């Protein structure tokens, strides 16, 4: 199938090669670019008062009558079979309503894996869920207990006795390399890229670096635990979830439990942090089945350990990056190959080589990712999947080459800046990475950096400065729907099943709709997080904002046509066509003649209509195929490293971004900083410790997995070019993930600049510096 996807994408790309740019959606730039009022304003979050007041209701907080509580039991072996399962003591415990195991779990099919072709497929694992006595990874759910209270359920779960017949499992990264798989494609890119003969160019290059970089597994660790509150009513099902894909998870649950689509409603108005981790996993399925068997509404909140056991994180990786350059520093060879885990029952390749295809021009390329198959909970997407760790390897290599050549690393990047996509040859829709570097360097005081490592010091502290590029592709999801309701009082509501997990979804789209419709922000409402609303895009790939924006654009076009029809001949607009007018000042006006204008109120009143409702979907995202569309960034940081202890402190960080139009500087700055802080964790502290002997994660707690805390986080400056992308709705590109990219390398490069030690294995802990 992935082979077929490759073929489809390739043929569409070829066909589009002949189409003039202006024929494509986005070919004529969005008229709102450069004509915005509410867009670009620092509006406070609309849901701010609810969130600071503790009134925003998350999925584990929905009160229901006769609610029961569930607790899960996880396997403690990797592979094998359950030979004895004694639930008698648990069942005899006061308050216990049900113990569900593979013996009494309803028979259901497999969850369809996330795919590019079927948008209702959102599973992260295609393994059977409580369907048989087979154990397939350490941590798999083997039983669920339902009781009147959480305390009773937790206690009863501890009384379940299980014996296993263990079989050998695959848990070792190194050993799995012998039968690594080579997938045909990585997402929608062909996996193996071979341009020229990179190995030969490398051998002949005037300057070269060739090293292996290692990154560990990482976990999302959203502070909100995964939780569902489930209620059946006959054959209809309501699931209060915390999920990044409301519409498609409702469809998937309906399919799995043999229900009609309109019988399943998933609600998720607030997601307490997602980062890729809040998808469809086993716990929702177990909760739905257990609620059915128990005949009671049910709440299942995973323990923090439970999240580690059954929700996958970022795959570890081993990446070889080799760069060859001629005497002037122009790249003659780029090699990026490596290994990451992707078991056949998982869906998410860790696409670390994608950044390499877009960042630099080179005479030759050799790019190839290999997948390892282990018996573990499948890895999934985590903030900037692939790019977060791919940029670590590539951007360290660039710094290493610059050092070896004795030139400034920014200058080396400038010399290799591509003028079109280095692999596909397609034009960039917009790219100003070098401008981002120049502005960032000036602001950060890059001149202070000394080329010779270990030059700057302050007492026991060595000081180092580093920089690196970040990169993240633009994506817009097909199938994003909205409903736009315009009322006779001049107010409007936009509804879509979309998600809010901290991006400020409603806040920003209300700003957008205000400008699109010519209304004040106060007159606009935004409803989201409910599968009963028109199916919105998922929150992933930094794509939700533009996907929704395109759907709102489409809705406003439909609305314009409908308003002109209603306005009829008694209106100052009579005779005008959709192309002659725009929505502004609470109504429709002629573009050429501002005196010809009629308000929404007046049009609706004359037509005796209370409201107009239009449903619309965003156009097919063809701009992605015709143009190379990427956000990029220049990350700067200053670290100090103690001579005595090896302790590393990040003193300052600055991110200079080139991400198209910034819709709300306040929420955008927060997203950039948030990504950079996760990058700080990736660089210095975060590591999922996996015991290869037992196949078990050893640090499944927030005390042992170290995410950055307040004292670790310096003041972070962010800035942006703000240049609109002429090919995207609003001129915007995604901003949710770019922030983390490049940060690992910027910090590693700063540590090298401080100490002269090159650490190529994350996280850079102090023991690696002593």
């Amino acid at each position: 199938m992935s082979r077929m996807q490759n073929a489809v994408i390739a043929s569409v790309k070829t066909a589009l090669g002949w189409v003039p740019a202006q024929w494509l959606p986005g070919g004529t730039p969005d008229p709102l670019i450069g004509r915005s009022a509410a867009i670009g304003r620092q509006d406070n979050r609309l849901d701010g008062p609810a969130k600071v007041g503790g009134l925003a209701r998350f999925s584990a907080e929905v009160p229901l009558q006769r609610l029961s509580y569930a607790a899960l039991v996880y396997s403690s072996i990797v592979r094998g079979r359950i030979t004895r399962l004694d639930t008698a003591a648990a069942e005899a415990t006061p308050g216990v309503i049900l113990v569900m195991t593979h013996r009494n779990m309803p028979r259901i099919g497999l969850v369809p894996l996330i795919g590019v072709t079927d948008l209702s497929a959102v599973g992260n694992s295609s393994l059977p869920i409580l369907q048989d006595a087979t154990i397939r990874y350490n941590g798999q759910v083997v039983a669920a207990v339902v009781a009147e209270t959480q305390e009773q359920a937790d206690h009863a779960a501890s009384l379940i006795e299980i014996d296993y017949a263990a079989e050998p499992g695959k848990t070792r990264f190194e050993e799995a390399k012998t039968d690594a798989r080579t997938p045909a494609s990585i997402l929608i890119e062909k996996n193996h890229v071979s341009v020229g003969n990179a190995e030969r160019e490398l051998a002949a290059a005037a300057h070269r670096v060739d090293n292996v970089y290692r990154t560990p597994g990482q976990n999302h660790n959203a502070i909100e635990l995964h939780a569902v509150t489930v209620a059946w009513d006959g054959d209809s099902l309501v699931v209060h979830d915390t999920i990044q894909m409301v519409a498609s998870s409702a469809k998937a649950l309906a399919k799995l439990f043999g229900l009609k689509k309109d019988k399943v409603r998933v609600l998720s108005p607030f997601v307490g942090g997602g980062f890729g981790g809040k998808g469809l996993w086993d716990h929702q399925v177990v909760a739905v089945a257990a609620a059915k068997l128990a005949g009671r509404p049910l709440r299942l909140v995973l323990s923090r350990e439970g999240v580690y056991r059954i929700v996958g994180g970022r795959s570890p990786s081993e990446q070889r990056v080799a760069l060859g350059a001629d005497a002037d520093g122009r790249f003659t060879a780029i090699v990026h190959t490596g290994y990451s885990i992707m078991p056949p029952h998982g869906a998410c390749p860790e696409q670390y080589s994608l950044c390499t295809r877009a960042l630099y021009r080179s005479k030759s390329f050799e790019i190839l990712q290999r997948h390892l198959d282990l018996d573990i909970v499948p890895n999934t997407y985590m903030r900037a999947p692939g790019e977060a760790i791919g940029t670590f390897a590539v951007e360290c290599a660039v710094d290493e080459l610059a050092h070896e050549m004795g030139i400034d690393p920014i200058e080396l990047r400038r010399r290799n800046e591509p003028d079109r996509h280095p692999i596909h040859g397609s034009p960039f829709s917009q790219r100003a990475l070098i401008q981002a570097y120049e502005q960032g360097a000036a602001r950060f005081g890059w001149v202070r950096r000394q080329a010779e490592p270990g030059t700057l010091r302050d007492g026991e502290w060595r000081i180092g400065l580093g920089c690196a590029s970040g990169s993240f592709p633009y994506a817009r999801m097909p199938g994003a729907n909205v409903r736009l309701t315009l009322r006779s009082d001049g107010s409007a509501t936009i509804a879509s099943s979309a998600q809010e997990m901290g991006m400020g979804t409603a806040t920003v789209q209300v700003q957008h709709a205000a400008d699109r419709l010519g209304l004040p922000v106060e007159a606009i409402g935004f409803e989201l997080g409910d599968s009963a609303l028109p199916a919105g895009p998922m929150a992933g790939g930094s794509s939700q904002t533009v996907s929704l924006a395109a759907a709102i654009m489409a809705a406003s076009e439909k609305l314009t046509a409908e308003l002109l029809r209603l306005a009829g001949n008694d209106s100052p607009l009579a005779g005008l066509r959709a192309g002659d007018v725009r929505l502004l000042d609470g109504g429709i006006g002629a573009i050429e003649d501002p005196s010809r204008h009629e308000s929404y109120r007046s049009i609706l009143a004359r037509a005796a209509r209370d409201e107009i409702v239009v449903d619309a979907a965003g156009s097919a995202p063809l701009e992605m195929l015709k143009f190379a569309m990427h956000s990029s960034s220049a990350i700067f940081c200053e670290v100090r490293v103690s001579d005595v202890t090896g302790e590393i402190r990040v003193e300052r960080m600055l991110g200079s971004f080139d991400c198209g139009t910034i819709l709300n500087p306040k929420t955008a700055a927060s997203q950039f900083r948030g990504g950079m802080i996760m990058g700080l964790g990736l660089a210095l502290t975060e590591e999922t410790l996996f015991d290869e002997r037992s196949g078990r994660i050893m640090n499944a707690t927030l005390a042992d997995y170290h995410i950055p805390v307040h004292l670790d986080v310096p003041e972070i400056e962010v800035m942006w070019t703000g240049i609109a992308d002429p090919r995207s709705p609003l001129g915007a590109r995604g901003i949710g993930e770019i922030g983390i990219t490049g940060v690992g390398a910027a910090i590693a490069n700063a540590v090298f600049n401080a100490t002269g030690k090159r650490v190529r294995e994350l996280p850079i802990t102090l023991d690696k510096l002593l």
Partner: protein
Amino acid sequence: MAIRINGQEVAAPQDARVSLLDLLREQLHLTGTKVGCNQGACGACTVLVDGARVLSCLTLAAQADGRSVTTIEGLGSAEAPHPLQSAFIAHDGFQCGYCTPGQICAAAAMLREIAAGVPSYVTADLTAPALPTRDEIRERMSGNLCRCGAHNGIVDAILRVAEEQAA
């Protein structure tokens, strides 16, 4: 005896295993107090007991018997928000909002700790009164995790309130 929660008397629960956190969330539906780990590692469950910050997940409800508990719902209201609540909005001190009630409750007690002269790991001069500087706030708030990375906004918001209180 009883627990006073946001000014209201509540009977201590029958089941001795019930934590203060679960009493608040599951029995009283005061769900502004959040849960991120149930192990004392994240700070999301921070509430005030007799004005001091405690982790309600590590506190049995029975231990609060006879004491006065303030949760985010009792700290301020939509009509009369606590200055920290307003400052968090103005400085964008949150994204998903899940760690936020814990951050705000912790900050309220933390500012009182500084005012009372309690030193911290970063207090340079133990003989001089502690001041609510950026570093002091960062150190003292480090028990409250935020995965969205709202740290800068949180510290800015707290600094603003500290300055207002000093003025």
